[in-house]
């Protein structure tokens, strides 16, 4: 059992996702994105299923899954807060802001708040360098932030 699904159910749904990508050249990344989108992570069963269907070894698929920061082994919280730590944001206080966010949430990078609400991820540039410091809350960009503004964002998220 993983993610509240039986192994068979999970494998079947992953199989369907792989099937939907069968006409692509180099389909592995799109498949992993789709699995991540559907389950919030890429569980072990999915790796096995994808490997079988693409005629790859499990080690190869595992290797790809773990190379990229985006693909998770376990689901994140209900929201993901990506905080930019790169230079443009640093130049306007991103390091202090990040410390403040970690303290306010009581978690470190890659961790999820105990209530399962927010997972905190560092990110190196969101392309919002002209409106720094910036974060991405799920898919929504926010710029020119201070700690109070980030607190409000998190508080408003359900």
């Amino acid at each position: 059992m993983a993610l509240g699904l039986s192994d068979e159910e999970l494998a079947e749904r992953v199989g369907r996702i792989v099937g939907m990508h069968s006409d692509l050249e180099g389909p592995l990344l799109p498949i992993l994105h789709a699995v991540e989108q559907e389950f919030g992570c890429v569980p072990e069963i999915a790796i096995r299923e994808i490997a079988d269907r693409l005629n790859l070894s499990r080690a190869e698929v595992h290797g790809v899954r773990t190379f990229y920061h985006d693909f998770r082994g376990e689901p994140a919280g209900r929201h993901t807060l990506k905080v930019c730590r790169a230079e443009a944001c640093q130049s306007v206080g991103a390091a202090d802001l990040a410390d403040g966010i970690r303290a306010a949430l009581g978690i470190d990078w890659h961790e999820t708040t105990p209530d399962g609400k927010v997972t905190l991820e560092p990110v190196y540039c969101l392309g919002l360098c002209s409106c720094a410091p910036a974060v991405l809350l799920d898919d929504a960009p926010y710029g020119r932030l201070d700690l109070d503004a980030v607190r409000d964002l998190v508080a408003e998220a359900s």
Partner: protein
Amino acid sequence: MSHKIYLPRDAAALSVGAEKVAATIAAELASRGIDAQIIRTGSRGLHWLEPMVEVKTAKGRVAYGPVTVKDVPGLFEAGFLEGDDHPLAQGLTKEIPFLKGQTRLTFARCGVTDPLSLEDYRKYEGLKGLEKAVAMTAEEIVTEVTDSGLRGRGGAGFPTGIKWNTVRQAQGTQKYIVCNADEGDSGTFADRMIMEGDPFVLIEGMAIAGLATGATRGYIYTRSEYPHAIATMRAAIGIARKAGVLGASVLGSTHAFDMEVRVGAGAYVCGEETSLLNSLEGKRGLVRAKPPLPALEGLFGRPTVVNNVLSLATVPVILDRGAGFYRDFGVGRSHGTMPIQLAGNIKYPGLYETPFGITLGELVNEIGGGTRSGRPVKAVQVGGPLGAYFPVDLFDTPFDYEAFAARDGLIGHAGVVVFDDTADMLEQARFAMEFCAIESCGKCTPCRIGSTRGVEVVDKLAKGDRPDEQIALLTSLCDTMKFGSLCALGGFTPYPVMSALTHFPEDFNRKPIAEAAE
């Protein structure tokens, strides 16, 4: 007459509340019973004024910004729909000095048009380059691009036409055009702005590249951190396909070209072209050794053009206006214009497209207005996390590939990040090594191990632990990384580290911290 209101849908504008401003304006229009159309555009690139609202008047578009939700009723009271005065009024958009001083060739339409209106695109000179290209031979197109002097805008500065010619002459049943839109350098956002603000220009550029080389398939590889760019690009490709710009018969010609967007997964190194190709193939984003060149053995081992967004987005204007027109801008061997991105601690951040040759000092002080904090400028990092930190005494450096190289720097993707005098350059050097350690693909030792050792050496320096020895060690380590790494990640990380050390030695001269006796 129905009023026309323009408001960006660019992520930078959205990040500071453009969506709420648009909704508030729409609600205000409805409650006042005013007939008006809100057109969502890309960004003009005057980012300190975002969200910037423009209205169409008899004299041209008039700008207001930065507009917040609570400013909206006041704007209506002041008569902004007629272009009337208001504390946020900026006058005619095209007369705003930041915009007026620019030469917009690549960014001609960005912020002006509805990015998903092919009709708008055509109205503003779009597709003219491709129309010319379909009537030319592949060799003629390549010659035009070569003669324009266009060089790779991703940072390496390799002549685009020469790369295209290699692919054109390569044998292969299937060739590819791969657009490197994996814009991971801090301080850069021009690729994102094009994809969100003028996606058809990138599609047109890629289609021209296809005609020039015989490639029939294209991929745009972009970042998962750019959800808006992905959505806009995908929508634009669908529209272009429907209109016959893409597909089995490009603009009714005998040439086929189609393309799709692929999304990375948070690996900076995939902006390196060979790593990107591996990622597109569904592999770990490991860097490949060169040769073979991607032009000969690229995606799936086939001949492949890998070009940056800005290189490809500049091709249509070159085909339309001619190689000579483009070549006449710029200095030395840097021809044409560069969309420079001003970011970080700067008063007027944004996108500034200008011919090569402008000095760093003009960019930072005159155009950028100095720091946002009002404190003195200490350092400027040009070219992203692998670019050098320039001190104020090198502000006479002209923006030009060779001039920056001569001063141990690089223009890279033309991101300019300003730091004020509170910056600690030892911390910046440490971050450069830390970033390299986090993002290293792990294939070569100087990058994989060197970056971690680099962090440790800088940490010892921070404690004042035998500084002379550490500095010698750091210098030697940077040498090894520079000359021994497979790609620019390990190879260029020494630029920020060594420039910080060379230009700001005082930040590395720490007093020893007395350790507690054991």
